[in-house]
């Protein structure tokens, strides 16, 4: 097993949605019913659980075996899968919704994964929900200007974040996969900026939360 896979085995158990991110994602998904959902990097199934309760069929995949053992008790189906490995587990199975929450920053070639998913696994009119941190949130810009950048064990600069996104970078990737942004519900920091902040996501979105649809 490579260092990369090893890194996630137990770590994935600790992943959960920050309160505000969870809230923002759930605001988009709470009305979904009767959909086939694929949750990539599902960890223990903490997002899929509520979707399943609402009457969706949820399939989860994760690189971590310990996480999947738990997810199997919560989701309809759950499998161990290294999304950048050789497996063809997903094949041509189609889904109405693919959740990619806090995952793309951990991938070596995220745009390739998304393009493949859109081609092979997204039903016509299907949607993709993506969330990822904003590397150039204004607080980070100030930190970088002052020379502060170091990896940490969790958070924005988690050492397993190998690919960073800005608003432009993320939107560009979504478009290059033949997807159209239909909703943005990003976590805005500082919170009091509210709707004004949401108009300048490249500066004030701390976590991007974006819903996109197949063109």
């Amino acid at each position: 097993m490579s260092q990369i896979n090893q890194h996630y085995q137990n770590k994935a158990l600790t992943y959960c949605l920050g309160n505000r991110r969870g809230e923002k994602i759930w605001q988009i998904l709470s009305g979904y019913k009767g959909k086939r959902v694929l949750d990539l990097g599902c960890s223990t199934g903490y997002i899929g659980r509520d979707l399943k309760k609402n009457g969706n069929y949820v399939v989860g995949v994760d690189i971590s075996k310990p996480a999947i053992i738990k997810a199997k008790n919560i989701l309809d189906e759950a499998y161990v899968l290294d999304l950048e490995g050789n497996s063809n587990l997903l094949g041509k199975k189609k889904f109405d919704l693919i959740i990619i929450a806090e995952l793309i920053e951990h991938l070596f070639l995220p745009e390739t994964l998304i393009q493949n998913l859109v081609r092979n696994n997204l039903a016509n009119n299907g949607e993709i929900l993506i969330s990822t941190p904003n590397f150039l949130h204004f607080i980070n810009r100030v930190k970088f200007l002052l020379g502060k950048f170091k990896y940490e064990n969790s958070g924005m600069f988690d050492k397993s974040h190998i690919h960073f996104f800005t608003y432009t970078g993320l939107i560009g990737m979504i478009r290059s996969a033949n997807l159209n942004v239909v909703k943005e519900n990003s976590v805005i920091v500082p919170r009091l900026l509210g709707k004004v902040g949401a108009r300048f996501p490249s500066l004030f979105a701390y976590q991007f939360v974006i819903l996109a649809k197949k063109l």
Partner: protein
Amino acid sequence: MSRSIIADYYNTKKIPFGISGDRRDKIFPLLKDLTDKKILEVGCATGYMGEKLRKQGNYVVGLDISKKDVQKAKKVLDQVFVIDLESERLPNMGTNFDLILVAEVVEHLFEPELVIKKLMTVLKPNGQILISTPNFLHLYNRYKMLCGKFEYVEETVINKSHVHFFTYPTLKKSLNSLGLKIIKENHVIFPRTLASIWRKWPELFAYQMVVLCERYE
């Protein structure tokens, strides 16, 4: 499970890895007197650096993830192996290397410290490691990011195969945690004019950091 996606990337990479003139000019002065040494070149690509060291009379072993490059390197180095340093054990290439050359490699690794640690098992007790890597927080990058520009572009500090960014303080801290101390620094300084002044602040002006290290006593 395999990370073949990464090996595939390096095998089919269109822009060949080659060391820029600037960087080479900073690395070779540190190595020009070496002769009769056993050298391990990590991420040797086609062997363009090791070849020169071999001509100086050193025994050079190369390692690289790209099969295609290793085919070429085999013609110019003493021994070359295809290896993914993050998932495989070191090949049977002997131990006791006098110098390990790790030029423009650590930024491509998921857990660079673990890889260096692994490499140190074949380093002589008083052997040296030369590391070069871009400075993520060079003044120019700080300015660009302040303005909201951060794009993955080939052949720059922010290259999409760069999965781990270093700054001058974080590089020093990593080396320290590995029991390595810097004995020489010979960074690529930008801007070039008045470089002798700017080099006092490598955290701001070193564009490529080039450090020669050895173990603490």
